[in-house]
């Protein structure tokens, strides 16, 4: 028979930390882009407002910081959109028209132009317009071509501005920032795209692993079913041969064949069951959902750290109690609780007793009590006309797990 290894839990943990890493890289890139933009505007602001005495004109004094703030805000909004649209497939992204004729793009571009005029520098205006447009999502290969053209244009503008009689001392620094800005933004976005692509490759890999796991399961299942079918076929053949001569022996063979069918079913369930198993709080929440669907008024009271409770011991109890409530309960209300008291976990399941459920309600409890007794726990129940309640206590020590 095929040996079945249980699925390895480590990939999901490293996947979670990788996902966090991708998110952190995204934040780092976005922050550095915003920071470079703010830095450029700050350097220009200091020179324009103070070194060149712009603070004396109210238009410059108010206009420069205000317009700078608009440009930065527009860039931040566009960065958020850029990240979000990076997740979506093409059909779900905004149309081209929507992408460019949107409030942040228009506000950013117009403010950049006016800012250039206020600072009396076409170089700054063009650089900011370019940096804003950079953050819009372009088609493949368009952005870097545009940036190369833009950079060439910015260098030309710089030479034109050099020809003008302005204070020479600060001109190079300003030009350096203005020319570098669009290029850095474009490079940052490019690296961000690369990270996202790597991340999507990682997700694909994770899905592939899941598919391989399923294929393995399918092959195990094939072996298991094949074996049982062969046994059943032989048992039935034997029964067919014997039925005329020895009907009793034939009936025995048929009974054996039926047992083989049950074995095959149980084996199949066990095989599929390895991929199941959810944390106890989820199991309780599912139970509450089911009971609500059955029309009961359900109250769920679960300790926040209930995931630490021994799920392999309490899980079957939750299942048994939930089916009991469905089968034998009065159908009005139920209350599920899982609380930690000192060093024990207490599971309580209470409901209104159904008509004539005196025998049924306790039916599955012996099985539960045996299981719980095995790990040093305890099962009690109380019952009156209004309320049937089961208390299950298990030690929270490590041995229960």
């Amino acid at each position: 028979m095929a040996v079945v290894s249980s699925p390895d839990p480590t990939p999901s943990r490293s996947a979670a930390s990788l996902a966090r890493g991708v998110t952190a890289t995204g934040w780092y890139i976005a922050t550095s882009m915003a920071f470079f933009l703010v830095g450029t505007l700050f350097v220009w602001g200091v020179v324009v407002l103070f070194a060149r005495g712009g603070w004396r004109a109210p238009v410059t004094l108010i206009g420069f910081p205000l317009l700078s703030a608009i440009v930065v805000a527009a860039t931040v909004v566009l960065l958020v959109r850029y990240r979000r649209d990076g997740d979506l497939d093409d059909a779900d992204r905004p149309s081209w028209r929507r992408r460019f004729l949107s409030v942040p793009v228009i506000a950013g571009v117009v403010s950049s132009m006016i800012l250039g005029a206020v600072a009396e520098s076409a170089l700054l205006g063009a650089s900011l317009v370019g940096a804003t447009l950079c953050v819009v999502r372009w088609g493949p290969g368009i952005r870097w071509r545009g940036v190369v053209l833009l950079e060439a244009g910015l260098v030309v503008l710089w030479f034109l501005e050099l020809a003008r009689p302005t204070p020479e001392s600060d001109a190079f620094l300003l030009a350096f920032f203005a020319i570098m800005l669009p290029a850095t933004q474009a490079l940052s976005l490019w690296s961000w795209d690369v990270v996202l692509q790597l991340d999507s490759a990682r997700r694909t890999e994770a899905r592939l692993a899941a598919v391989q796991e399923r294929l393995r399961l399918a092959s195990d299942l094939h072996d298991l079913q094949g074996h049982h079918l062969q046994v059943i076929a032989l048992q039935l053949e034997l029964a067919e041969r014997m039925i005329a001569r020895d009907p009793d022996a034939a009936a025995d063979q048929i009974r054996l064949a039926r047992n083989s069918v049950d074995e095959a079913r149980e084996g199949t369930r066990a095989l599929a069951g390895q991929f199941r198993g959810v944390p106890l709080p989820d199991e309780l929440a599912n139970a509450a959902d089911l009971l609500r669907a059955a029309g009961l008024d359900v109250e769920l009271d679960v300790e926040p750290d209930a995931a630490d409770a021994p799920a392999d011991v309490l899980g079957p109890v939750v299942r048994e109690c939930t089916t009991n409530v469905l089968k034998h309960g009065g159908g009005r209300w139920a209350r599920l609780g899982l609380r930690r008291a000192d060093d024990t976990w207490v599971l309580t399941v209470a409901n209104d007793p159904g008509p004539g459920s005196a025998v049924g309600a306790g039916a599955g409890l012996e099985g539960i009590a045996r299981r719980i007794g095995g790990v040093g726990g305890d099962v009690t129940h109380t019952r009156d006309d209004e309320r049937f309640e089961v208390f299950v206590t298990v030690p929270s020590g490590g041995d229960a797990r």
Partner: protein
Amino acid sequence: MIRVLIADDEDMIRTALAALLALEDDVEIVAECRDGESAVERALELRPDVCLLDLEMPGIDGVEAASRIRQRIPARCVVVTRHARPGVLRRALSAGVDGFIPKSRRAEDVAAVIRDVAAGRRYVDPEIAADALSDERSPLTDRELDVLRAGARGETIAEIAASLHLSPGTVRNHVSSVLGKLGLATRQQATITARERGWI
């Protein structure tokens, strides 16, 4: 006598089950149907005590048939299934189904369930309940599920936005967050996943 209607599109299973149940002293098979619509029709006509409905049938499924029958007549309904997909038991219970059993149960057990249900009790098979309880919980919020549901038939972002009275940007935010949570690449994959797990 408990009058029983059986609906199952697999002829071999239906006839074998009907023959085995007819051997029970207190069960009478009043009708055998091959799909959900005819089961509803025959049930309204014959008013059986218990309807034994296969979950997977062409046209309307067993749960839907049960809910239509229950709306009109007080027949008790038992749904039989080969493989209970997540969420089905929840749907069946809210449709007012009284019994839910896997197909692998022996006919004598099915007869016992029919008796139980006819006597006014509810029967949920432990295996199916265990499966339902070990369902993976949806990591998505109600709003995100709304977005997937509204876009389940290939609607565009703009159409989803219009039907939910949200802005397209908000819808995109939800979609992006859904894809991030599920680790998937497209909205279509997310919709398929959510449907397979019974979240929508």
